[in-house]
Structure formats: C-alpha cells, structure tokens
C-alpha cells in the first residue's frame, strides 16, 4: 500500500474541472497540488486549516461529517475526513466531471498509509 506524499497527491490524469487538491494530515502537515495558479501552496494551507477548524466545530456540536461541500458561486470545495484525522480537500468547478465524481477521486485517499 502506498504512503501519502506530495507526489502521490498528483492525479495520474487531468480531471476536467478539478482546480486543485490538498491534504491535511493528523499532525497538521499540509500537502497540496494545484491545477490553477490561483491556488498556491500557501493558500491551500490556509484553506485546509479553516476547513479543519470547521470540522472540529461541527464535531463539537454533535455533527460528525462524512463529507462537507462548500459551494461558492464559481466552484466547490469538498472536504472528506478519514478516521485517523487526515482530511482531503478537492476544489472543483461546479457541474464538471471533477465535481460529479468526488467519491471516485477520493477513493485512493482512503487506501493510502500515513507518511513515514
């Protein structure tokens, strides 16, 4: 089984509509991969921290999400937690192959080991 790494985050093929993806590991380390220059690594880190804080807040209110979908005018951010606390965030344009196949895109995330 592969480990989570910066290289593993890059999808093998370009998925239409996928703007970028980010991972936040249980130790708060952030990894990211972007298809759009507007999504810099620094931006991803800030976004992932915001999303992780919201996840904590929701858990504190008895709402333990399996998935969060943040919908904006021109895009969506999908946040998927793993039982070990790792979080996968995918940013996609709405009504695209990427936004409609989040489950498939997230499949590998659940099979990866934490980094060594």
């Amino acid at each position: 089984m592969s480990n989570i790494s910066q290289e593993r985050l890059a999808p093998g093929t370009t998925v239409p509509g996928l703007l970028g993806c980010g991972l936040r590991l249980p130790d708060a380390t952030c990894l990211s991969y972007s298809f759009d220059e507007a999504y810099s690594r620094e931006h991803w880190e800030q976004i992932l921290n915001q999303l992780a804080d919201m996840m904590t807040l929701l858990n504190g209110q008895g709402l333990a999400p399996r998935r969060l979908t943040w919908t904006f005018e021109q895009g969506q951010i999908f946040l998927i937690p793993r039982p070990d606390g790792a979080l996968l965030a995918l940013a996609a344009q709405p009504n695209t192959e990427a936004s409609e196949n989040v489950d498939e895109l997230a499949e590998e995330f659940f099979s990866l080991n934490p980094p060594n």
Partner: protein
Amino acid sequence: MNAPAKQYQILFVDDDPDFLAMIQDFFATLGEKIWQIHCATSADQALERLKARKTDLVVTDVNMPMLDGIQFLHILNRSHPDLKKAVITANATEEKRSACLAEGAELFIEKPRSPEGLKSIFIMLEELITWTPQEGFQGVLRRVGLQDVIQMECLGRTSSILEIHNLQLRGRIYIEDGRIIHAQTGGTTGEAAFYKLLALPSGEFQLQPFEPPPERTIEGQWEFLLMEAARVRDETAAEAAATGAAPPREPTPTDEPAAAVPECGTRVEETLICSGAGDPLYVGQCPDRPARVALLQDLAQRAAFISQLIPLGNFDRLEIQLAGSRAVAQTGADRMVFVRVSSPKGNLSTRLP
C-alpha cells in the same frame, strides 16, 4: 396474436385459515387468470414463500402470533423494498394505520363484512398492483408536513409543483429552482393563495413534476413566505378556537403512492432561520439554538476568508453529510439558515467510510 396477460403473484398472510379460504375462493374468481393467489398463515411462512417465489404484492393481517403484521412489514421494508404491501385488518385503529403506513404499507384496509366489501378490496388491490411510479419519482413520502416539503424543495433548489387538496379546496404551489414563484387556489393567486393553502386545516398533497405556471405571482424569499404562512395559520387557529371549531392540522401527504420524493422516510429534524446578526426569526426543533447561531456566524467568517483567498466568488452554502442525515447551512448579510434532514437510507456518499 395477443400476448398473454401478465400474471400477478399475490401473497395473503393471515392466521385465520377461514379468511384465507374465503379470499382464495372470492379473489381467484374476480382475478380470473391474472391473479395467482398464495396464502401463508404466519409471517415466517410468508417470508419462506417470498424467498421461493417472486411476488408482486403482499397483503397481511396485523394481529398475528409471534411476528405481528407491523413487525412483518418492517422486515419486508428492508428485505423487499420494492415489493408492494397492503394491510387488511379487523382492528383498524388510527394508531395501527399510522404504524403500518410508516412501515411501508401502501394500503391499510378494514376487513370486509360483506361480499360487496370484498369486491371493493379487490378493486383497491388491483389498482395498487397495476400502479407504476411516474417517471422521475422514487419512494413514498410519509409523515412529512407540507411546510417540511416546501423547505426541502427550496433548500434543494429543485423545481416541482405541489398539488394540495381537501374536500373544500384544491390548489397548486409552483417551485422553480428553489424559489416559490406562483400559487393558485380557486380564484385566488399569489401570496394570498399560498397562505390560504398553508392554512388549510387538513388535506392531502402530492409532489408533481414541474411545468411552467400560467403566470408568476410570487417573488418573496421562501423563508419569509413560510414564516408569514405560519403566522396566518396561527391566526386562523386562534379564530377557530375562539369560535369552537377544530384546530387546524397541517395537510399530510396522500396515502396514494403517487406522492413521492427521492428519499423514503425523509424528515426535517431541525430548522433555524435567523437574521444576519444572529437573532432567531424561525426556530423548529433546534436543540441548541445558541450553538447553531455561533456555528452559522463562524461559517460566514470562514467562507468570507476563503473566498478572499481564491477566486471562487461569493459563498452560497455548506452541505454537511452525516451518518443518517444531512444538513445545509446558508449565510447571508440579512439572514442565516440551518436545516437538518434525516435520510435513513444514508444514501449520501455511501461509498465513503
């Protein structure tokens, strides 16, 4: 040459062998060669028969030893979700009716006391067995109020027509992309018709596919329309109480299977609508209102921060998928909304752990 008529396999379950014999005798004649009638004297015998043979309709009694009809329906609902189910009982109380319908029965009928009664039942069962869901509809909506359905349609930004009727009145509410755009009842249209329909003391409703209305008469936000409808309804109730009339009861979905939404058994569990400053405008079964208001305010701040970082435009909503339910949170300058809806099948993101 005409194709042979489809034969329907119908299983009657009753611990009274005399009743089963009568049914077999009477319905075999009425159903001619189209109804293939099978009988079981207990639920476990019926389950065995269902395993052995594809069945189109199960008609069960309620009061049976060991496993009663309601428990039997509960099992069937899980093991054979597409199977049509009807109940015939000598003890047709409102409590049992509600329980049976909640467990997936499409029909609940009192045991007949005459051959005419048996014939009526035959017609009802025949109607049920030949009924097929309309295109675009799955499942059956039960135990959900009219306001809940409107909320779900608006939050889901779907388009549909809500047909509402009782003995005195018939009307329609048009919802397009989550906006209430038109209502009509009798000679009344617009908001007046909307409030009139939502203030009905009792009745039935069905959700129909959307078609453009003859005119657009409503422009207001759905949250405020519902709040105003609740106020009108309360006033009507107060007037009814003052005059000694029965208090209003919200229309419920018809027992006809045509009323349907995507998820069977979906129910609004929690609703909070508040101003942009966090002042509650409408609260429905919200166990911890201050916490939810704080959540919405926090969400608004984080969403604004994210939309400043990356070019996604303004924030619209956050959808929260939970085990067995889902929630939607919306934040805006003038109002914030939190709604949680149960989805017992947990069909959202089922592929994820």
